[in-house]
C-alpha cells in the first residue's frame, strides 16, 4: 500500500510538474495553426468513398514505352536500381500537356554502357498521345538516362529540358518548331559525374533559370565490388554505403543561354548521395531555397541569402534526419501543406523500415518529423518509396500523398521487389491508405520509380504518369469524377523568371486560405506540371487570389468568378492587379 502510495505520488509529481510548466509557459509556445479553416473531408464522405479511382490508360491512349535498365546482362550494378523519370510540359504551346519519358540504357557482357532513347509524347487534345521523339530529334542513345527536368532556360517561351544519367547530361533546347537540339556542352554544362535529379529555378535573382544537378555515387565497372545476396553465391546489387558520394553541382545562367559552374560560389557541400531535388521558397523570404533528398546520408536544406549563396542548414532546421536522428535512404521529395496552415511542409519518401518523412513547418524556421503522428510511419514502413506527389487527388480540398514504390535489390528479405503503389488520403488528423479496386493499378505491385502529375485532359482533376523498371509506363487517369469547382493557375513571369519558380499563390476562400507554390524539381527524377491546382468543395467560395511573384510583386485578383484554367502574367508594375492572359471556364 505504501509502495502504491509512493508510486501514485511519483506519477502525480510528473503530471503536476508538467502541467504547471505547460500552463505557465503556454503563452510562449507556438500558436496552434488554424487547421480548421477549411473543413477537412474524411475519406468516408462522398468525395472519397469511391477510393482510389485511377485507371491506367497508357496503352489505349497511345503511350507504350518501357524504361529498361540493362539488368539482363546480370552485372548487378547499382546503376540498374535507379530507374527513370517522367515530365509533363506543353512543349508545343498548344495548350495541352505533353509527356517526356527517359529511356534508361543497356549494359553489355563486356561491361560497356549505352543509352536508350527518351520518348516524347505529344498530347492530342486530351484524347490520346502521339510519339514524336524522332521528328523532335531527341532519339539519342548517348546517355544511360535517369531524370528529366523542364525549364525555359533561354526565356523564349518554349520549354526546354535536361536529361540526367550516367555520363554527360543532355540539355535539349526547344527550337519552337517541334524540334530540339542538344547543347549541354556548348552551353557550359560539361559534367560527366553520375547525375540523378535536377531542378530549374532562378537561384541568384537575376531573372534567368539556373540549374541544380544532384549527383549520386562513384560507382563504375572499375569500382564494382561483389555484394552478397541472401544466399551464398547470389550476387546482389551493392548498397549505396559501398560507394563514395559525388559532389553536387549548380550552374548559374549567364543570361545569354550559357551557364557557368557556380558550385563553389553557391557554397555547396562536397558530399551527399543525391536522388531528389526540390527548389522552392521554404522560409519564405522571396528567394528560392534548395532541398536535396540524399540516399543514406543527411538530406540538405540550402537556405538562400538572396544572391545565390547558400548556407546548408538541414540539421539545425530539423529536416536532415529522421525522428531517430538517423539519415535515411531518401529518394523522392515534394512540397506540401497537408495541414493547410499556409506554411510549406517537406515530404520525403524513404527506404524500407524507415518512415516516409513529413517534416511539418513549425513556422519559426524549424521543422518537426511528424510521420508517426500522422499515421505515415505505420503505413509506409515496408515500402521503398520513390516518385511522389502531394496533391489534392480526390478534389476534396486537402492534399493527399501518392507514392510509387519498388525495391532496389534483387533479393530483398523484408519486402518484395515489386510493391504496391500508395495513395494516402488525409482526414484532418491522419493519413489513411485509400482502398483500391481489385485488379486496378493500385492493387497490383510494380517496380515504380519516377512519378509526375498533370491534368493532361483538362477535366479539372490530376492525372499521373509513372515510370517503372522494365515494365511499361503507366498513365493513371483520374476517375474520381468529383464535380467540385476547380482552379488551375499557370503563372508566367516577366520581371521574375518566366517559369515563375518560387512564386506563391494564396487562394482566399470562404473557408480559409489555400497556398500553393511553383517549384523546381520535385518527386524523383521527374517533373510535374507547373500549374497550381486548387479544388474547392461545393460549399466553399473563392474570394481572392494573391500571387507573390519572386521579383517581389504582389498581385491580387478577384477570384469569385474564377474557375477552370487560368494563366496569369506577372505585372510589370508592382501592385498591378491586371495580367489575365487566358481563362478557360469549365
Amino acid at each position, binding site marked *: 500500500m505504501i509502495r502504491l502510495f509512493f*508510486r*501514485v505520488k*511519483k*506519477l502525480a509529481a*510528473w*503530471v503536476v*510538474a*508538467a*502541467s504547471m*510548466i*505547460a500552463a*505557465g*509557459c*503556454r503563452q*510562449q*509556445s*507556438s*500558436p*496552434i495553426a488554424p487547421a480548421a479553416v477549411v473543413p477537412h473531408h474524411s475519406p468516408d464522405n462522398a468525395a472519397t468513398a469511391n477510393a482510389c479511382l485511377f485507371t491506367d490508360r497508357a496503352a489505349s491512349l497511345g503511350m507504350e514505352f518501357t524504361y529498361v535498365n540493362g539488368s539482363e546482362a546480370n552485372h548487378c550494378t547499382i546503376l540498374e536500381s535507379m530507374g527513370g523519370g517522367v515530365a509533363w510540359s506543353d512543349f508545343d504551346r498548344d495548350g495541352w500537356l505533353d509527356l517526356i519519358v527517359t529511356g534508361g540504357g543497356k549494359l553489355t557482357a563486356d561491361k560497356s554502357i549505352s543509352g536508350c532513347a527518351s520518348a516524347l509524347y505529344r498530347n492530342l487534345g486530351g484524347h490520346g498521345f502521339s510519339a514524336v521523339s524522332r521528328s523532335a530529334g531527341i532519339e539519342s542513345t548517348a546517355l544511360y538516362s535517369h531524370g528529366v527536368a523542364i525549364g525555359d532556360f533561354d526565356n523564349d517561351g518554349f520549354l526546354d529540358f535536361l536529361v540526367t544519367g550516367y555520363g554527360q547530361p543532355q540539355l535539349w533546347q526547344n527550337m519552337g518548331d517541334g524540334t530540339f537540339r542538344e547543347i549541354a556542352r556548348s552551353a557550359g554544362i560539361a559534367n560527366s559525374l553520375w547525375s540523378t535529379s535536377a531542378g530549374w529555378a532562378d537561384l541568384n535573382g537575376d531573372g534567368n533559370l539556373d540549374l541544380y544537378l544532384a549527383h549520386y555515387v562513384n560507382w563504375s565497372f572499375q569500382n564494382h565490388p561483389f555484394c552478397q545476396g541472401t544466399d551464398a553465391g547470389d550476387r546482389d546489387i551493392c548498397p549505396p*554505403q559501398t560507394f563514395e558520394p559525388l559532389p553536387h553541382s549548380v550552374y548559374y545562367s549567364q543570361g545569354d543561354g550559357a551557364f557557368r559552374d557556380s558550385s563553389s560560389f553557391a557554397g555547396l557541400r562536397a558530399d551527399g548521395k543525391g536522388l531528389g531535388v526540390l527548389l522552392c521558397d521554404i522560409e519564405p523570404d522571396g528567394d528560392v531555397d534548395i532541398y536535396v533528398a540524399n540516399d543514406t546520408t543527411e538530406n540538405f536544406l540550402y537556405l538562400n541569402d538572396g544572391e545565390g549563396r547558400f548556407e546548408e542548414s538541414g*540539421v*539545425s532546421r*530539423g529536416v536532415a*534526419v529522421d*525522428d*531517430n*536522428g*538517423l539519415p535515411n535512404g531518401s529518394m523522392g521529395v515534394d512540397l506540401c501543406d497537408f495541414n493547410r496552415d499556409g506554411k510549406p511542409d517537406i515530404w520525403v519518401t524513404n527506404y524500407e*523500415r524507415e518512415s516516409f518523412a513529413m517534416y511539418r513547418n*513549425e513556422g*519559426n*524556421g*524549424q521543422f*518537426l518529423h*511528424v510521420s*508517426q*503522428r500522422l*499515421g505515415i*510511419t*505505420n*503505413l509506409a*514502413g*515496408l515500402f521503398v518509396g520513390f516518385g511522389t506527389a502531394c496533391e489534392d487527388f480526390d478534389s476534396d480540398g486537402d492534399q493527399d500523398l501518392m507514392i510509387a514504390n519498388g525495391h532496389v535489390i534483387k533479393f530483398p*528479405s*523484408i519486402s518484395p521487389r515489386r510493391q504496391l503503389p500508395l495513395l494516402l488520403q488525409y482526414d484532418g*488528423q*491522419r493519413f489513411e491508405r485509400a482502398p483500391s479496386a481489385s485488379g486496378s493499378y493500385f492493387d497490383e505491385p510494380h517496380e515504380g520509380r519516377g512519378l509526375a502529375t498533370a491534368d493532361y485532359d483538362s477535366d479539372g482533376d490530376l492525372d499521373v504518369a509513372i515510370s517503372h523498371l522494365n515494365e511499361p509506363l503507366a498513365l493513371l487517369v483520374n476517375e474520381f469524377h468529383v464535380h467540385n469547382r476547380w482552379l488551375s493557375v499557370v503563372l508566367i513571369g516577366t520581371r521574375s523568371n518566366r517559369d515563375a519558380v518560387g512564386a506563391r499563390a494564396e487562394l482566399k476562400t470562404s473557408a480559409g486560405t489555400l497556398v500553393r507554390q511553383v517549384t523546381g524539381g520535385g518527386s524523383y527524377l521527374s517533373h510535374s506540371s507547373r500549374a497550381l491546382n486548387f479544388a474547392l468543395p461545393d460549399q466553399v467560395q473563392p474570394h481572392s487570389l494573391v500571387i507573390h511573384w519572386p521579383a517581389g510583386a504582389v498581385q491580387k485578383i478577384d477570384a469569385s468568378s474564377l474557375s477552370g484554367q487560368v494563366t496569369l502574367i506577372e505585372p510589370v508594375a508592382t501592385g498591378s492587379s491586371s495580367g489575365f492572359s487566358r481563362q478557360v471556364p469549365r
Partner: protein
Amino acid sequence: MALDRRSWLWIPGRLWPSGRRAILLAILAGSLILLACLSGRMWHWYRLSAVDRALRSGDWQSAIAMLERTDQRGQNSAQWHYLAGRAYRRSGNAVLAEQHLARAAEYGWNGEEVRLQQLLLQAQGGQIKSLEGQLAERLQAGVDDTSAEEIYESMARGYLASYHIADALKCLKFWGDWQPNNPLPHLWRADLYQRIEKREAAMEEYEQVLALRPRHAEASLKLAQLRLELSDLTSAAGLFQACLDQDSENAEALLGLAECRARQGLGDQSQALLYDALLLDLTPGKAAAALARLGQAALEERDDARAIYFLEKSVALDPREAKSHLTLASALATVGDDQEAQRHRNAARELTDQHTRLVSVTRRIATEPNNADLRCEAGLILMKQGLLPAGAAWLKSAVQIDPNHQAAHRGLAEFYTRIGQPDQARRHQQIAGQHPAPPSTLPVDEQG
C-alpha cells in the same frame, strides 16, 4: 506450581512424575526434536529439488527466485551454492555465478560438476573458441541429458557473445535436432536472426517457441517488438497485451503497447499507458523511453514547454539516446534556445555516428569473426557510450584472438580502472606497454 487443566502444558497427573514415565516422556520429546530437525532438512531438500527441476526445465528465473527465498541456514550448503551458480550462469550473471561456484567447491560439492559449470561459464562469456574442443569431447563422450543441454546452451551463448554466427547456427541446429520440443534452441536462433537482421526468420522462431510454450513471456515480447518494427500493429498490440495479462507490471510490454497505440493514432491511450509505466520501478533507460515518448507527443501537439520538461528528464536519465537529444533540440529551437539546441544536436550526431559505426563493425564481425581490430573497435565504442561490461566483453574477445592486441589491452585497463580493480588494470596496461601497436587492418576512412 499447580497447572490448570486448561493450560496447554497440562499433563495428566497419573503420568507425572514417575521414573518410567519420565523416560518415556524424554524419548517422546527427543523424537519430536529429531523429527523437527529432519523435517527442516527435508524441507530444504525439497526446495532445492524444486530449484533443480526449474533449472532442468530452463526456468532459471524461477530457480533464482526460489533460491533467494531459502533461509540463511539453507544458503550455507554446498548444494545451494552449486545450484545458485548454475542458475546465475544460465541467467547470464557471470559475476554471481562465479562466486557461487567457488563457494560450492569450497563447501565440498562434486569437483567435476563444479568444473563443468566453470567451463560453461567461460565458454558463454566469449572464450568459446578456446573451449569448444573440450565441450565437444564431453558431448561425444556421453553426458546426461541435463548436462548435454547445458553444454549446447553455453556453446550457443558463447558463439553468440563472440559473434561467431555460423558456428552458433550449427550448434543450435544440432541442439534443435536433438531436442525438437525444447523451446530454447528456437529462442536462441531467433536472437541470432535478430542480430543479423533476418526478422522474418526470427519471427518464425519465436512463433515456434510459442507453439511449444504458448505463455512464453520472452518469446511473446520479442515477437511483439518485431511485429511493431514491421508496423504490424494489431498483432503487436495483441502480443503486448498478452504479456501484460500475465504480468501487468511488464514495463517493456507497457512501453510497446503505448508505442502501438501512438502509431494507431490513439494518443490518449498511449499516454495513459506511459503514465502507467512511469508508476513502475523502471530502469533509467525505460523511464527515459517513456518520458521521451511523452515529450515527443507534447512537441507534436505544439506544447513546447511540456515537451522540454519531459525530454530534459529523459536525456538526464539516459544520455545515450540520440532520438531524445534530437527531439529536445527541436523543442529548444522552437522556443529560440538555439545554443542548447545545438548542443543536443551535436550530442545526437555523435551518438548516431557511433551507432552507425557500431552497426557497420558488428556486421563485419559476423563475416570476419577472427578480426581482433573490429572487436576492439566495437568494445571501445561501447565503452565510450558508458556501456562498460558490454564493451569489456568485446575487448576480451579481441584479446582472446590476439593476446597482444595493444588497443584492446589499453581499453581493458581503462575498464578495470573505472570499475575499481587497479591490479587488473595494471596488468593490462603492462601488456599494452610491452607490445607496440601493429598496423591497423582497417581502411583509413573507417578508423573513426
